[in-house]
C-alpha cells in the first residue's frame, strides 16, 4: 500500500469513526493497541472515556485498533506486572485458513455455523452461561469472535481457560469411554436426551443414521435394521441390532462433534495478555467493520459489515493482481485482471486496496 492509498483509506475510516457506535465495557480498565503497518505497532495505551477514545481515533486514525480481553487497575502501566490484573473476558476466536486471498469468504458461513454451535450447544447449554453475557462479533476478515462477560469466569487463569477450549474442541475426549458392555453382552451407551458431550454424541449419531446411514455401515441402508438400531439408541442400547465393530465405526460421528475452527494455537482464549479487535472498529486488511452482531442467523459479513457512508462517492483503482469474482455489498464484482483500471464505489475500492490487490489511480 502506498502513501496515497493509505491516506484515502484512513480518511474514509476516520469518517466512519466520527459517528461509529462503540460499546466497550469498562473502557478505563482495558489496555489498547493500535496498528498502522502491522496489526499492533504500539500497545499499553489507555483511555478513561469513550470520548477520549473517539478523539484519539479521529486524530491518529489507525488501520487496526484492539483492546485487551483483560481488565487492569492500571492498563497503561509497563511492564505487564505493574498493570495489576483483575480478570479477563472469556473470548473465543474462530476462523479458517484457505487458499488465496479471497477463498476464505466462501467459507465464512461455515465458520458462522460453528460460532452458533459454540454458543448454543456449548456456552449456553453445557457451561450454563446466560445469553445476555454473550456477544457475537465479526472479526472483520476471516472469522468470528465470541465474547463472554460472565463474572464467574473472570479470574480464571490461562490453564483453566485452556481446559474450556479443549472441552469445546474435544481435545482429550475419548468417546469410547461413553460405552459399557453389561452382563448380558449389550452395549450400553449415551442417550440423545443426555446433556453434554454424551447427548451430543448420541444425537449426532442418530442424525447420521437418518441422513447418511451407509457412512456407518452398509447394512443401515435397510430401513428396518436402521430404525431398529435407532430405537435402541434412544434408550441407550447400542446393540439392539448387533453391528460388528460398531464402537470403532462410530469414530466418524465423534469427528463431526469437533469445533475445530475454535482457535487454540494462537491462544486468544488462554493468553491473558491478548489484544482483540475492538468490536465495531475497522479491520485494516479489508475496511470491513468488526461488527457487533445482533441477529447472527441472518448476518452476512460482506453485506452487513460494509461501512455504510459516502455511498455515492466513487474512485478509480488499478488492479495489481488478478482477483476472482466476489459478492460484496449486494453486488457482484470482478473477476478483474492485473493492470485493469476500474471506477468503483469508494467502499469497494478501499476493500480491494486494503486487500493489497489494487492501488488508487494517480491524481486522486
Amino acid at each position, binding site marked *: 500500500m502506498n502513501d496515497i492509498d493509505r491516506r484515502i483509506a484512513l480518511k474514509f475510516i476516520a469518517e466512519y469513526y466520527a459517528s461509529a457506535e462503540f460499546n466497550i465495557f469498562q473502557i478505563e480498565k482495558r489496555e489498547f493497541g493500535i496498528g498502522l503497518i502491522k496489526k499492533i505497532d504500539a500497545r499499553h495505551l489507555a483511555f478513561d472515556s469513550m470520548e477520549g477514545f473517539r478523539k484519539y481515533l479521529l486524530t491518529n486514525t489507525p488501520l487496526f485498533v484492539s483492546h485487551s480481553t483483560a481488565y487492569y487497575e492500571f492498563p497503561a502501566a509497563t511492564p505487564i506486572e505493574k498493570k495489576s490484573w483483575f480478570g479477563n473476558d472469556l473470548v473465543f476466536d474462530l476462523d479458517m485458513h484457505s487458499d488465496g486471498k479471497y477463498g476464505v469468504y466462501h467459507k465464512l458461513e461455515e465458520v458462522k455455523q460453528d460460532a452458533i454451535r459454540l454458543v448454543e450447544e456449548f456456552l449456553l447449554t453445557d457451561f450454563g452461561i446466560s445469553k445476555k453475557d454473550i456477544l457475537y462479533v465479526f472479526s472483520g476478515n476471516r472469522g468470528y469472535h465470541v465474547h463472554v462477560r460472565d463474572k464467574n469466569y473472570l479470574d480464571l487463569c490461562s490453564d483453566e481457560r485452556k481446559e474450556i477450549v479443549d472441552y469445546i474442541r474435544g481435545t482429550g475426549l475419548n468417546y469410547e469411554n461413553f460405552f459399557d458392555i453389561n452382563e448380558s453382552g449389550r452395549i450400553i451407551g449415551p442417550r440423545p436426551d443426555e446433556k453434554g*458431550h454424551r447427548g451430543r454424541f448420541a444425537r449426532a449419531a442418530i442424525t447420521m443414521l437418518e441422513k447418511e446411514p451407509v457412512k456407518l455401515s452398509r447394512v443401515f441402508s435397510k430401513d428396518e435394521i436402521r430404525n431398529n438400531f435407532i430405537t435402541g439408541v434412544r434408550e441407550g442400547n447400542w446393540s439392539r441390532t448387533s453391528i460388528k465393530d460398531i464402537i470403532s465405526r462410530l469414530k466418524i460421528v465423534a469427528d463431526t462433534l469437533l469445533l475445530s475452527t475454535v482457535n487454540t494455537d494462537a491462544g486468544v482464549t488462554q493468553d491473558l495478555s491478548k489484544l482483540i479487535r475492538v468490536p465495531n472498529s475497522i479491520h485494516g486488511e479489508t475496511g470491513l467493520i468488526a461488527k457487533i452482531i445482533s441477529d447472527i442467523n441472518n448476518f452476512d459479513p460482506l453485506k452487513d459489515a460494509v461501512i455504510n457512508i459516502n455511498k455515492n462517492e466513487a474512485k478509480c483503482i488499478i488492479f495489481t493482481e488478478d482477483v476472482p469474482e466476489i459478492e460484496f455489498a449486494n453486488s457482484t464484482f470482478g473477476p478483474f485482471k492485473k493492470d485493469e483500471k476500474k471506477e468503483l464505489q469508494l467502499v469497494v475500492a478501499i476493500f480491494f486496496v486494503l486487500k493489497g490487490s489494487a492501488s488508487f489511480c494517480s491524481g486522486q
Partner: protein
Amino acid sequence: MSQLEFCIHYPFTSVAKAALEQSGIAISDRIVELALQRIKTALKEGKVAKSSALHDSEKIENIASYAAARMILGFSRNRFLINAYAVAESKRASDYLDGESDEIIDKVAGEFNIKTEEKNGNLLIPVHIYLKYSPRDVHYRLSNRELANGYVKLKSRHEKIRLIEGAIKKHMEKIPLVKSPPESIKIAAEKLKEFLPKIQRQEISFSLASGEVPPCIEKLLDSLKKHENLPHQARWYLAVYLIGRGMPMEEIVSLYSNLPDYNEKITRYQLDHAKKKGYAVPACATILTWGLCCADCKIGSPLNWQKLGKADRESLLKTGRRI
C-alpha cells in the same frame, strides 16, 4: 468435634483465625520454634504432622504455630518454600477431611465458596469452581467429564475433598508479604535457607537455552522455575524428554528439586526407572490429550523440534503457530 479441634485441623479458616485472636496468645519464641518445626517437617516429609495436642493451651499453640509459619514464609518471600509448604498443609487438611462428616466438609468448603449440589444422586459442582481447584491431571480433564447447565458431575466424595485440597493450596500460595516481623521470625526464615533447591535452571551446564526445546517443554521448565506443582504425566514426560536429550541424571534431579513436593529418594527412583526402561518420548498427539501441548508445531514428535528452522521456532514459542 469441638470448635478447637476444628481449628487445629483447619487453621486457615476464619473460625480458627477468630479463635486465635480471642485467645490473645502472643507470637513467643516457643511458638516461632513450633512454627519452624512445622515448616521443616513439611519440607522434609511433604506433609505437616497431624496434631497430638491434649490440653487446650497446647491446642492454641498448635494453631498459633500455623499463623507464625505463615509469617515466616511471608517474610522469606521465597516461592519454593511457600509452594512446598502449601502442598504439605493442604495434604494434611485433606487427610483430616477424609475422615470427616459431610457437615464438616461443607463447612471447610464454604471457606472457599465451594458449593456442591446433590441432584438425582449425583454430586454436582459449578464448572468455574471445578476448573479453579481441580488438579491439572488427565483424570480431571474437563473433556472427559459430564458437564451440563454449568455444573460438572463429580465421581465421588473423594473428588470433592481433592478440590477442597486444591483450594487450600491456592489459598496458601497467596501469602501476604510480611515486612518487619519480630526478630525471631527473621531468624527462623534465615534457618530455612538450607532447604532451598540446589540448583536453578540458569545454572545448569547442559544446554537448554530458550529456543532449544519445544514450547511444551519450555512451559514445563518455566513451571519448575516458578516452583509450581506438576501433574504426574508432566513429570514423566519431562523426565523422558530430558533423558532422551542426554541430560545427565544429576542435573535432572537438581532440576526436579524445584518441585514444591520434591522428595529426593522418590525422584531418583522414578528417574532411574524411566532411564532403565528406556521409554520413548510420546508423540505430540498423546501430549495433546494430556493437556500439555501448547503450540501447533506440526512435527509429530517433540524430538523433531531441532529440525525446525529458527524463524518457525521463534514464531511457535511466541504465538503458538508456525510462520
